[in-house]
């Protein structure tokens, strides 16, 4: 589905939601909650705030569905504008400033970079900036990498996804994961290694496991 088809479909789903369809609300949640959560997290580095922003954004969408005008912009941009305002409100209430982020990372799906920049400027809280001297890692499209990881997580077996998320999200050790899940430690280790292997494979050669034992180090500066 291209951007235009998605916009048309979004508008139709919003109309169904405005008619009272919770199924339509769930569809829109599935489409946009992850990107909204990620954007809020990038601004705040606070998962709790990001969760609240997601809830408030979808509540606002439900309450104000009739005010969404597909001719004025995409649903993604509309939702991200709501989410960003909610995020800024939360940060202001807490006396904090947004975390410095790249403009590219604040873009909504299918949103033109110029539109992203204008939206951020209009919000009065633009914080995006390019690194003046990006290193090899920074030169990589981080958002694209994150999307690839998210996609890989979505398709990997539940058991493997669980151990990875517990490890990286809740910062649990292998022993703690085994205890939490009631799995043998060896099982946790096996699943963890397999999951990490899957994720590294989607990240490309620079991050992936060596093809063999004769892999040589990549000289600094020659990374892509």
């Amino acid at each position, binding site marked *: 589905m291209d951007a235009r088809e998605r916009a048309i479909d979004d508008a139709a*789903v919003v109309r*169904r939601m405005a008619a*009272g*369809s*919770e*199924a339509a609300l*769930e*569809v829109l*949640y599935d*489409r946009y*909650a*992850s990107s909204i*959560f*990620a954007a809020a*997290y*990038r601004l705040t580095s606070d*998962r709790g705030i*990001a*969760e*609240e922003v997601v*809830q408030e954004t979808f*509540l606002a969408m*439900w309450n104000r569905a009739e005010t969404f005008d597909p001719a004025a912009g995409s649903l993604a941009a509309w939702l991200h504008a709501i989410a960003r305002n909610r995020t800024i409100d939360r940060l202001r209430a807490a006396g904090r400033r947004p975390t410095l982020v790249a403009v590219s990372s604040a873009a909504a799906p299918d949103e033109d970079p110029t539109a992203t920049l204008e939206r951020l400027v209009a919000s009065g809280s633009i914080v995006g900036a390019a690194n003046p001297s990006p290193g090899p*890692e920074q030169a990589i499209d*981080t958002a694209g*990498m994150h999307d690839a*990881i*998210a*996609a890989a997580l*979505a398709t990997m077996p539940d058991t493997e*996804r*669980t151990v990875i*998320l*517990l*490890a*990286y*999200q809740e*910062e*649990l*050790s*292998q022993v703690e994961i085994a205890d*939490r899940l*009631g799995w043998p430690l060896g099982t946790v280790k096996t699943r*963890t*290694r397999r999951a*990490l*292997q899957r*994720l*590294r494979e989607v*990240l490309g050669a*620079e*991050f*992936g*496991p*060596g093809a*063999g*034992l004769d*892999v*040589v*180090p990549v000289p600094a500066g020659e990374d892509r």
Partner: protein
Amino acid sequence: MDHDAVREQLELAAVEPGGLERLMAGDTATAQAVAAHLAGCPSCSAELARLGRAAALVREAVREVPPSDLKARTLAAVRAEGVLRPLVATVPGGPAEAPVPTAPVPTAPHDATRPPAATVVPVGPRRLSRAQIAGWVGTIAAAVVLSIVTTSYVVGSRVDDQLAAQGETIAALEEVTTATLAVTAEPDAERVALDGVSDPSLDGSLVFSPTTAELVVVASGLTEPPAGQEYRCWVEVDGQRQRVGRMFFSDDLAYWVGPVPAVAGLTGPATFGVSLVEAAVPATATDPVLLGEL
């Protein structure tokens, strides 16, 4: 230690909090063996570098994945706080709404091994809107009408019994309606959605006022308990569970109405639950079937 053993150690360390740093510190026999191997093995050293970069990237990306229970909490918040819209195909047994295609999204196993997230966490101000009050009363009124209509269509000779049952139903619903209107008239009235703990077909709502301590709870999906048992309502504040009362049943509606001293002046977190218990046993420690956060 050979290549495979070293790489296994590296991979496992990469998903431990600070694992690679600890491994490189070399303060265990295993870490020293790994360090000794790395010192003479360019390919494993390169693997360590790639693994370190990958682990950092995955950690960063995973932190941006919303928890798995956020969807349920968001939908519950919309139900509890959102404007009322004509519900489409949410009535059990009703005509199914045409499915809306969607794609799966990755979510974290926030509660992978914990008890199900049975409580609702509404967001924003919980003051009841006029629409919500109207919706609450409307739901009850609809139940009254449905009860009367249903009963009226029963053909048989036991007219007196039917009328008696109908009268009881109307009286019960009138009690719920009257109490609900009284509670929602209070400026600090709050509404809380209740979710089934292990049975998603169970749900309910309650309204209460910390000022008057009056509370009204209604639930759907519950059936009358077996003889000798009851659905007991309780409130848990600061870890102390206090008995509130037992659910009454009228047709498909389960309800309880009355004062709850535990919610008087309530400002902190509290939990409301309904548990199936032996009627003769005063304890309330049984696992709940319905839960909600006050």
